[in-house]
């Protein structure tokens, strides 16, 4: 077996473990599924009239508008949960088992990210299903839905890289868990739940430059109006930036952990 094929097998096995771990630990899966679903229900039920506001983008329903935001929330919490689970592995010594194996050590990080990406995939499918069940249309059709799924999955991988880097650097699940409020702040300072055009300063400017807004719009556009090349490219660029940042931070944190033991 070639080195690459062997590493791919390890990444797949660790990714599968990561997914199993998430579904077997309620405190990891509930923020990814339950919390965003409840928020979606509350917001669509209570703020649905918002679509009548002047300047609100043309949408079929508030649920249709909200789907991208819920996917983003779920994806970001998946990244945070992945970081927590990684930190728990470090705390209980499980990563020592992995570090003592004859595998490229970055495969350990990639395995964790593969699991987080799979959870992103799950989140996008979950919210698309909810949207379709409750009457939201996917304006971009099957290609639009596939594009949204792809972008959410890739975003989960990107955000997971940041979570993994923090877990490796601190080795503390409580520190990673403590980032939960920050995740929400970043999310609410984007266009995830409210159109950028209707925000007031300084939130409007922050949302304008928040990379998450680019990703949200890239996911939302195929749902509410159809695939738009510019917005798709902006989303891909934002994801690529976060992926690079996450991988660089993870690599540095991994070196630090191996140096200090």
């Amino acid at each position, binding site marked *: 077996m070639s080195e690459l094929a062997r590493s791919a097998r390890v990444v797949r096995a660790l990714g599968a473990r990561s997914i199993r771990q998430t579904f077997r630990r309620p405190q990891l899966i509930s923020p990814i599924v339950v919390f965003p679903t409840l928020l979606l229900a509350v917001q669509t039920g209570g703020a649905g009239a918002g679509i009548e506001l002047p300047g609100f983008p043309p949408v079929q329903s508030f649920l249709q508008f909200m789907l991208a935001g819920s996917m983003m929330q779920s994806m970001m919490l998946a990244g945070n949960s992945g970081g927590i689970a990684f930190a728990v592995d470090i705390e209980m010594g499980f990563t020592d088992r992995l570090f003592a*194996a004859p595998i490229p050590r970055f495969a350990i990080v990639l395995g964790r990210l593969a699991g987080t990406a799979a959870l992103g995939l799950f989140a996008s499918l979950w919210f698309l299903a909810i949207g379709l069940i409750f009457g939201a249309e996917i304006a971009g059709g099957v290609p639009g839905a596939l594009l949204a799924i792809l972008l959410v999955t890739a975003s989960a991988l990107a955000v997971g890289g940041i979570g993994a880097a923090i877990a490796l650097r601190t080795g503390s699940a409580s520190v990673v868990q403590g980032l939960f409020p920050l995740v929400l702040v970043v999310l609410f300072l984007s266009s995830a739940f409210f159109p950028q055009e209707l925000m007031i300063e300084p939130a409007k400017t922050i949302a304008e430059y928040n990379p998450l807004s680019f990703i949200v719009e890239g996911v939302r556009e195929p749902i509410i109006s159809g695939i738009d090349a510019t917005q798709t490219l902006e989303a891909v660029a934002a994801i690529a930036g976060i992926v690079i940042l996450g991988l660089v931070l993870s690599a540095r944190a991994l070196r630090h952990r191996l140096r200090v033991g």
Partner: protein
Amino acid sequence: MPAIEVEGLERAFGEVLAVRGIDLRVEEGEIYGFLGPNGAGKTTTVRMLTTLLLPSGGRASVAGHDVVAEARQVRASIGVALQEAALDPLMTGRELIRLQATLQGLPPAAGRERADALLDRVGLPAAADRRVGGYSGGMKRRLDLAAALVHEPSVLFLDEPTTGLDPVSRKTIWEEVRALNEDGTTVFLTTQYLEEADQLADNVGIIDSGRIVAEGTPETLKAEVGNPHVELLVAEGAVAAAERACAELGRLLPPKDGRRVLVEVEEGAAAIPRVVRALDEAGVAVESLELVRPTLDDVFVDKTGHHLEKEEGGSDEEPVPA
């Protein structure tokens, strides 16, 4: 070629020197007992030898490979069961062994076969599909041992494999370690239990405060400390008579209390009939008689001035990075 060779190995955590330039050599097929109290530097040494921690100085090779320059080759040659069995409580035993087989590069079919065989070997076939979180301490240790053996390593590192286990589970682990060693596996075993090192190890290294203070076979080390002695418990008022009767047989050692007489005997058990005859002839009634041999704790006391057991105010933990 030695299985493990260490020269001047050091590890510092900030200002604290946890391992202070140790040398040791473990031959192939040997069980090496690395004995020392909590915080002595055992785990830090094992982490360096298993490539989990970079040394601050010195060098070490395992299975013929340098632990820094050829870390990957070292990892392919060793099995590791670290302190506090590092197991995922949410995985089943079978899942864990199969994952370990994948990490070690075994093809899927071979990994499945090996997992079944190892779970049988450590007596866990019935629990194989249960989550590890529900296992007892002994079961976890056996599973950890099985995971370390999945690729049939030539050198096995066991870091305090029986700490916290009940006597029955401890004996089970000992039997498994002996069986592995009989199959040719070199075993590097850290322990804070004297009996464990005495029972299992061909050679023992005693570490204290990051330095190896004694090394050799358990018998040699104990022989260096002194001869065995006979400990007599006699009736009150008979101590002087007992001491007079035994004075010719060996050196009298300082008594522990007012009813005990301690006589050093070079020939060990062979001296007991002579002691009994001498006491009988002197008309001394003996309540109990015991031949006491030096222990590794005596060796430890001799080399360090304190007992192996945790001392008051001492730290349980080895230094860790901030």
